[in-house]
């Protein structure tokens, strides 16, 4: 089957600044595909090009097999877009926001009414359907924005930082909604700078840094290839971390010294911790955890995702 999105040497420049630097990827139907990277990595620029909103500077991009430069309108009519800022009309009601957006897609009025029922149900906004958007919580607004993006039954849903700024509980509700969509077979492209989000949601992802793709794979696959099974995080009192560095290096496959703590990459964190104590170091605290995409990012770029 032909991929829904295909990019080769895709580039976006703003004057002298190269936001997206000759990247290539493809997204298959039914897949949840992620762009993971820090702010300014070029994720949103890529999304806007896929969304046929921002012109491609150079390279090749096909969405549904169409060229955004020529068939922008046709592409946009088959996409659902969930922008980072909700861009809802705060003065209008939940229903009115959905209705207006449905009209933009040229959906007949009666059909929109029917879809609004489904979508309000999906977004769990039943009690708020006639209330103004303004006083709704951040999580509710975001769910409404996702519902709005689904009004045209899109073949591909673009979600730009879907849970940024939401509290943990609202994030989980949202993830649950997105997971449902995935089970219904809705293809999704998600940008995020949260590694847990990428791990939760994406079948496959690329890690972006400074406009380039630095790695590609499934969350598990990326962790297996670029990190160890376990990570030991140790904290030391102020001033003791740096002198401890050389010793720490003897206890693990790889050690990253951050500002406030050290990350030890090892297949067996517990024995590494025993080794640390045996060598006479006394960390203030120690945490054993599994490797995450954050560790992969740190290894590939030497920097943390969220600073």
């Amino acid at each position, binding site marked *: 089957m032909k991929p829904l999105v295909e990019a080769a040497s895709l580039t976006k420049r703003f004057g002298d600044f190269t936001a997206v630097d000759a990247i290539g990827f493809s997204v298959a139907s039914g897949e949840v595909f992620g762009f993971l990277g820090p702010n300014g990595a070029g994720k949103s620029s890529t999304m806007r090009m896929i969304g046929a909103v921002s012109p491609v500077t150079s390279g090749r991009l096909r969405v549904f097999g169409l060229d955004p430069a020529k068939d922008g309108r046709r592409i946009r009519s088959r996409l659902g877009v969930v922008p980072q800022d909700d861009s809802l*009309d*705060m003065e209008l009601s939940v229903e009115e926001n959905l209705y207006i957006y449905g009209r933009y897609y040229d959906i007949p009025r009666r059909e929109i009414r029917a879809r609004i029922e489904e979508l309000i149900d999906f977004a769990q906004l039943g009690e708020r359907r006639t209330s103004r958007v303004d006083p709704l919580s951040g999580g509710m607004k975001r769910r409404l924005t996702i519902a709005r993006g689904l009004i045209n039954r899109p073949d591909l849903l673009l979600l730009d930082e879907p849970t940024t700024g939401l509290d943990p509980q609202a994030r989980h509700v949202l993830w649950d909604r997105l997971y449902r969509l995935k089970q219904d077979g809705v293809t999704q492209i998600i940008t995020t700078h949260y590694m847990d989000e990428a791990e939760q949601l994406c079948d496959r992802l690329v890690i972006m840094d400074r406009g380039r793709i630095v790695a590609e794979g499934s969350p598990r696959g990326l962790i297996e290839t670029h990190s160890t099974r376990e990570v030991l995080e140790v904290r030391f009192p102020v001033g003791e971390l740096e002198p401890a560095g050389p010793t720490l290096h003897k206890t693990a496959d790889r050690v990253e010294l951050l500002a406030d703590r050290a990350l030890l990459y090892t297949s067996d964190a517990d024995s590494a911790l025993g080794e640390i104590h045996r060598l006479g170091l006394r960390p203030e605290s120690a945490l054993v955890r599994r490797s995450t995409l954050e560790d992969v990012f740190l290894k590939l770029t030497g920097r943390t995702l969220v600073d």
Partner: protein
Amino acid sequence: MQVPGALRVVEANAIAYRRVWKGSAFSSFVTPALFLVAMGLGLGSLVDRGTGAPGFEDLSYVSFLAPGLLVASAMQTGAAEGSFQVIAGMKWTRNYHSVVASPVGTRGLVEGHFIWTGLRVLTVSVIFGAVAAALGAISPVAALAMAPIGILIGLATVAPMTAFTANRENTEAVTAVFRFGITPMYLFSGTFFPITQLPDWLQSVATVTPLWHAVEMARRVALGYDSALPAWQHVGYLVLVFVVGAALAYRLFSRRLNV
């Protein structure tokens, strides 16, 4: 034209307008109507005892004022639609960004914006015309005949105003345009008195304002007076201002929204 995209934008604006129509109706119709009563009938009772401006000796002041006030109100509505609405769409609700991501696109957005403004201005003109006719200032036929002039000046205002606002980040510069552009035009483009009363240099300034051309046309259509220039020149000027402004607005919208 991007029909139906543009019409969808009009529909969306109409739905949003339902929420604000009371406040908007006040500034669009009630205030101009109060002006017409106070200035036309009140102040007019004094004016009519004078000699009258050259060329308008046997015309009552309220009849003189009504056509000018109608197009001046249309201009104000156009200016508001081209300024605060645009900043809201770009910055406050960011609603323009979601329109551009839909099949409507930037083209449909801009066209819909102008069609919507045309409709708004049409309503303002018709309602104000009805009030003026009810007060006996002009005939009902004259009131209706001025509606197209109202639309023209509305469009000739909203288009350059939209272009001006397209890449503003706040209302500062927009407020300045109202203070130093729209309000002086309102007062000195022949609405309240013929521009022949102005000093020469101000007369030449007045003749390049779109409003003056609209006022001349409105008086011609409503009262049967000769306009300063042939009708086609007044109309042509307004059309030109609209077309240039609209083309510029479209370019600036693309530059901001399609990056």
